[in-house]
């Protein structure tokens, strides 16, 4: 049962061949056995989990079960969830028990999903390796020497290690797709505005978006059905008709136009990743897809633009951590200013501080036009690149990251080196487009590699269709690490 998909678990629960309490117990046992080595979870609370599972069983007995009622779900520690510690991977929020639910949490609670635990992450979602957590690095279940990717590294590792059948993640610059790729699971970042940001601890508000992570595209579609929806409390939530993201899963790919951006296959891409992406494209061709070359000429500019916009917005968002209303407060201080400065110096880790400083500088008097405004203009150029590309194709395919997962510690002393590894994911957030990662193979050293699918605005159902059809003829997504 531990390798079962959400779809299969849903069927087993409906058939009453297993109860939600039994299922939760199985995953909790596995977490107890394997999490000490993986560090995928920050908080596990068997009492709370089993109470949620018992409530799900009771709902089922009363004939009120929905499709996902009773199914376990791991939650990234960025979503406020009433009664659960919501640390966001930071010492700053180590003592923060959320007093309310994020919109996404309201949705998954209403659907009857059972919280199996709260997953580890880079502090405030800032990182590409999950080494920036106050709670320590997460290990990649495929190779404990490797990073799991970040920032949703705990969520990806939990699903890959079968500590949970699915997880919630967030993606500001690749934080769902890159760990999904490095851990051999499926994850989708929806179009900006599709999933409410209410109650999701803010990093860079014009880029942040929540999304599902699971073994299969079909499971992601089911979970996205639960997560998506308008919410008036998020000022950028989009008012759109409700969609069924599973509706196109079984469509044929005959005639599908697949765009390959030539800039994604240039210098810097490792031979391993190039081989895996080429093979995936060949597989889709067999399914009837036609390949066209497209160009995204401003791809390289996504790195400077992102590393201005994200830190600028972060410096503003993280100004709320002042040691007054919640979060860490220093023990000793001489006055109010000293209290702010010491609380923040003690509460934030080094990467978060770096980004706050970069953001503070680019927004400071006299520099706004040269940095933030300039970056927003470059952002438009990047979005326009995609607009032109999507005139020629239905979806864009490419790598998620230049290499398979690197080793823990390999890049942690060089922020710039780390930032450069985000080259294929950042532009999707800057443009606000949906993007996903689908397991597509392995590097020579046995570490997983994902295929990135980028869609036009609101084309999640089409992307999930492509991924699902790919998963009907491949079994990369069903492979699990030996643990």
């Amino acid at each position: 049962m531990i390798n079962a998909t959400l779809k299969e678990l849903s069927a087993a629960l409906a058939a009453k061949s297993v109860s939600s309490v039994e299922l939760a117990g199985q995953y909790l046992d596995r977490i107890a056995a394997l999490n000490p080595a993986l560090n995928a979870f920050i908080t596990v609370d068997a009492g709370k989990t089993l109470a949620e599972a018992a409530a799900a069983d009771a709902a089922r007995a009363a004939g009120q079960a929905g499709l996902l009622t009773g199914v376990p779900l791991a939650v990234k520690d960025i979503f406020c969830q009433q009664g659960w510690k919501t640390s966001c991977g930071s010492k700053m929020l180590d003592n923060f028990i959320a007093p309310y639910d994020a919109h996404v949490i309201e949705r998954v609670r209403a659907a009857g999903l059972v919280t199996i635990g709260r997953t580890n992450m880079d502090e405030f979602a800032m990182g590409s390796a999950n080494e920036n957590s106050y709670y320590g690095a997460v290990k990649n279940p495929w190779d404990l020497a490797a990073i799991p990717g970040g920032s949703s590294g705990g969520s990806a590792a939990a699903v890959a290690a079968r500590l949970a059948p699915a997880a919630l993640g967030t993606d500001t610059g690749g934080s769902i797709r890159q760990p999904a790729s490095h851990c051999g699971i499926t994850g989708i970042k929806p179009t900006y505005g599709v999933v409410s940001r209410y109650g999701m601890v803010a990093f860079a508000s014009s880029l942040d978006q929540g999304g599902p992570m699971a073994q299969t595209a079909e499971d992601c579609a089911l979970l996205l059905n639960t997560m998506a929806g308008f919410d008036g409390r998020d000022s950028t939530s989009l008012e759109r008709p409700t969609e069924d993201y599973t509706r196109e899963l079984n469509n044929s790919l005959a005639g599908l136009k697949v765009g390959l951006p030539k800039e994604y296959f240039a210098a810097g891409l490792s031979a391993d990743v190039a081989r895996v992406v080429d093979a995936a494209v060949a597989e889709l061709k067999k399914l009837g897809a036609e390949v066209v070359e497209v160009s995204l000429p401003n791809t390289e500019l996504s790195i400077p633009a992102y590393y201005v916009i994200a830190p600028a917005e972060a410096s503003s968002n993280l100004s709320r951590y002042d040691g007054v209303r919640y979060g860490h407060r220093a023990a000793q201080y001489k006055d109010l200013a000293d209290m702010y400065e010491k609380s923040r110096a003690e509460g934030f880790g080094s990467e978060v501080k770096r980004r706050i400083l970069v953001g503070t500088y680019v927004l400071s008097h006299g520099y706004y036009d040269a940095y933030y405004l300039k970056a927003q203009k470059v952002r438009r150029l990047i979005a326009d690149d995609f607009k032109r590309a999507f005139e020629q194709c239905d979806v864009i395919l490419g790598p998620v990251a230049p290499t398979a997962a690197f080793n823990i510690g390999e890049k942690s002393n060089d922020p710039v080196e780390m930032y450069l590894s985000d080259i294929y994911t950042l532009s999707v957030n800057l443009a606000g487009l949906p993007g996903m990662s689908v397991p597509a193979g392995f590097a020579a050293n046995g570490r997983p590699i994902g295929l990135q699918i980028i869609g036009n605005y609101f084309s999640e159902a089409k992307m999930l269709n492509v991924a699902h059809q790919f998963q009907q003829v491949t079994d990369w997504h069903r492979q699990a690490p030996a643990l």
Partner: protein
Amino acid sequence: MSLTHQDVARIARLARIAVTDEEIAATGAQLNNIFGLIEKMQAVNTDGIEPMAHPQDVSLRLRDDVVTETDRREAFQAVAPQVAAGLFLVPKVIE
């Protein structure tokens, strides 16, 4: 451009983050590397390009001017470092 130690200290003060002299030296070098990366953007011609703040370029909604929040002061103050009589406590600001 290159940030001096004085610049880093000023930025840290603006950001309300206490930094030691050793941190200023280490952080300064890293920030200069990061700005080296960012400066690449300056070479691009963006004349006449409209800055992009929101992917859908939608105008922000206005909500009705009515009270929608319930009183949850107790729950919200339960996570505060220091409160008394329903107020958040901070060090004395005015002598």
